[in-house]
């Protein structure tokens, strides 16, 4: 009897003590460790962004220019490499991917834990760079400045290099799991769409990350051994660095957005009580985005002295990304149409995603157009654009996912009213902050300067005030999420009437997820209402 009880204890309580967490091979626990680690980096990166907005609140310097350069660099580098790239696949993907296909774990649990520790080592180096005094190159580490900069470029790029292996191993693990570990009856075409997006992400992780690995490796050698490959003084080519960097970093923006899109597919469907509109179109469009993502990196280099022909081709190819992306947005919207919409917090975030990601996507088309980009490049228009995709897109998807799956992960409900309040703060704050940056960019304000002309003062003030609202929104969220861990109402197994497998098991799940092989529904969104 005691044994049976133990076998059915939930994953949080099945084993006790901090050590049982540190050596766990349970994908759910590894997912939770990733979640807290990456959220910690989100807070660090977020504080830097508040510092940046504080400097830009009014014209005239507040911090030293050098301090400002380090603040925006650390904001960008931490947010990109330590938060937004890993969080959805490594935290939510790890937790839910095996459950959603009816498996007990990922294909390689040890590798999974190893990739967490690799991530921890890489991230510690990046944080080490921060503590040692920061980096001032911008998150893109462009040569030749990054070769000469006296700041801690080696530490942070070594961190990025090492983190890359963590991403490769996670992606590889997920791909194998999806191919080989699906429960009997589960196929690629009745699995939840979140998994299609994780699969597409994993392809990019495996294929693109090695390139940023070798790029940062060469940059480190450039500084240590003076190999001169990127250094014009030694005959090297600094533009080659940009090609290498963006060959990874453009696909990497889809490592960031695709998992967010996957969450939206789940949440929009569940909270519309309706089958997704165009399952296959949504599924294949993830693969199409992953494929096209490898062909467009040159759009970051329209003014770097690329040949006019390359500029033309990259501009043209970039437009193609809009096609599968728009297919997704249309399908989500069509799913909402005549659905029984429930406006719970996850759904509010999903709707915020649809609104803001569309703005981010359409302004992306502006920037893909060659002549417009030459005018707008390196202005705040670009900053606003990618924040609309990264924060308005990925982070909204993430928050939808965290709220949607919170009851499953921790067995507690978050307080719904506070969820809506914080969502309202974030939504309003975000749009105030970044719509004004579109205007600033259009007016010609360049990015990355610590000071500006007085004519930009008004909109900068607006933008900085908006960022404060975002900060308050997140503060409220972190408070109620922590509160709910102990005090929140006990979550039922299926609070949202979800049809996917994770909702058919207890909240929180037992250690091995399922007591018996689960029955696989013909479709993950069986609401009896056609898509």
């Amino acid at each position, binding site marked *: 009897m005691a044994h049976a009880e133990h076998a059915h204890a939930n994953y949080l309580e099945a084993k006790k003590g901090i050590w049982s967490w540190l050596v766990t091979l349970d994908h759910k626990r590894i997912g939770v460790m990733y979640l807290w680690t990456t959220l910690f980096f989100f807070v660090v990166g977020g504080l830097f962004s508040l510092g940046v907005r504080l400097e830009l609140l009014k014209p005239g310097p507040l911090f030293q220019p050098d301090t400002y350069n380090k603040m925006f660099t650390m904001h960008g580098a931490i947010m990109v490499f330590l938060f937004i790239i890993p969080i959805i696949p490594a935290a939510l993907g790890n937790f839910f991917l095996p459950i959603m296909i009816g498996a007990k*774990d990922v294909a390689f649990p040890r590798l999974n834990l190893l990739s967490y520790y690799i991530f921890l080592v890489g991230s510690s180096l990046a944080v080490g760079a921060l503590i040692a005094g920061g980096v001032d190159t911008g998150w893109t580490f462009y040569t030749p400045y990054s070769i000469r900069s006296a700041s801690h470029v080696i530490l942070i790029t070594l961190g990025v290099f090492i983190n890359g292996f963590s991403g490769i191993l996670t992606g590889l693990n997920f*791909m194998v799991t999806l191919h080989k*570990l699906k429960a009997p009856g589960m196929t690629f075409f009745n699995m939840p769409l979140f998994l299609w997006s994780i699969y597409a992400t994993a392809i990019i992780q495996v294929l693109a990350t090695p390139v940023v690995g*070798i790029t940062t490796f060469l940059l480190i050698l450039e500084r240590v051994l003076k*190999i*001169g*490959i990127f250094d014009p003084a030694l*005959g*090297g080519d600094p533009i080659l660095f940009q090609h290498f960097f963006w060959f990874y970093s453009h696909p990497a923006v889809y490592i960031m957005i695709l998992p967010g899109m996957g969450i939206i597919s789940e949440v929009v469907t569940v909270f519309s009580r309706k089958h997704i509109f165009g399952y296959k179109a949504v599924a294949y469009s993830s693969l199409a985005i992953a494929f096209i993502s490898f062909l467009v990196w040159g759009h970051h280099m329209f003014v770097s002295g690329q040949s006019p022909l390359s500029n033309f081709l990259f501009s043209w190819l970039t437009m193609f990304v809009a096609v599968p992306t728009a297919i997704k947005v249309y399908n989500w919207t069509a799913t909402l149409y005549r659905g029984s919409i429930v406006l719970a917090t996850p759904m509010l975030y999903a709707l915020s995603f649809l609104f803001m990601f569309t703005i981010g996507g359409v302004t992306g088309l502006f920037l893909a157009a060659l002549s417009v980009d030459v005018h707008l490049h390196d202005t705040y228009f670009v900053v606003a654009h990618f924040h609309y995709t990264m924060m308005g897109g990925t982070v909204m998807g993430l928050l939808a996912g965290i709220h949607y799956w919170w009851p499953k992960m921790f067995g507690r409900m978050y307080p719904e009213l506070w969820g809506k309040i914080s969502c309202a703060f974030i939504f309003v704050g975000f749009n105030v902050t970044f719509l004004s940056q579109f205007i600033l960019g259009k007016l010609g304000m360049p990015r990355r300067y610590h000071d500006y002309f007085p004519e930009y003062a008004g909109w900068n003030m607006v933008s900085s005030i908006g960022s404060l609202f975002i900060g308050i929104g997140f503060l409220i969220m972190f408070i109620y999420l922590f509160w709910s861990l102990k005090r929140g109402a006990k979550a039922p197994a299926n609070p949202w009437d979800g049809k996917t497998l994770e909702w058919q098991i207890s909240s929180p799940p037992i250690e091995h997820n399922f007591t018996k092989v689960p029955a696989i529904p013909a479709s993950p969104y069986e609401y009896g209402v056609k898509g």
Partner: protein
Amino acid sequence: MSTHVIPHHFDNAEQAYQSSKLGFWLFLVSEILLFGGLFVAYIVFRSLYPDMFHEASGELNRIMGGFNTIVLICSSFTMAMGVNRVQHNDPKKAVMFLAITIAFAAIFMVIKYFEYSHKIHLGLLPAGFYHYDGITHPRAPLFFSLYFVMTGLHGVHVLVGMGLITWVLLRVKRGDFSNQYYTPVELVGLYWHLVDLIWIYLFPLMYLIG
């Protein structure tokens, strides 16, 4: 012969085997892309300075490079034989073949060591430390940057391979494998063939263009 325990999250041995193999192939793909970046850099600089590559390549020792190529090809063969013997329940021969493979790898590294020390002695070093006046082209240092980075990264892979082969050799000796379960040996074999393959590209591109 010990029986291998299948990890609990797999249904059967075949599923575990197929998963490991797929995972390892994906890893090899990422390795190829890692080297791919370096090959792209090679192509860029060779097309920028074709004459310099021609001249600088002449400084490399073709005899040593060629000998090393033969050594690695032989080692790929003995590795394949080692895997084959494990699959046929013949651990004694398997251990022998794996040991020969390690010996070949060691020969490769020793020769590489002599090549490197000669270059370092002459001052044929990565760009910033280069001091050799035998080549007239001012961009020749870049060739040696690429030479050291590409063969150096390859050398690191050879060392890792030696470690991995030693590890499977010890496990073969201990009797961990049989014709029912030999996944690690096969995967290390795949890794070793890739290391060999990369050298087969490096050798002509570096040594034979002069």
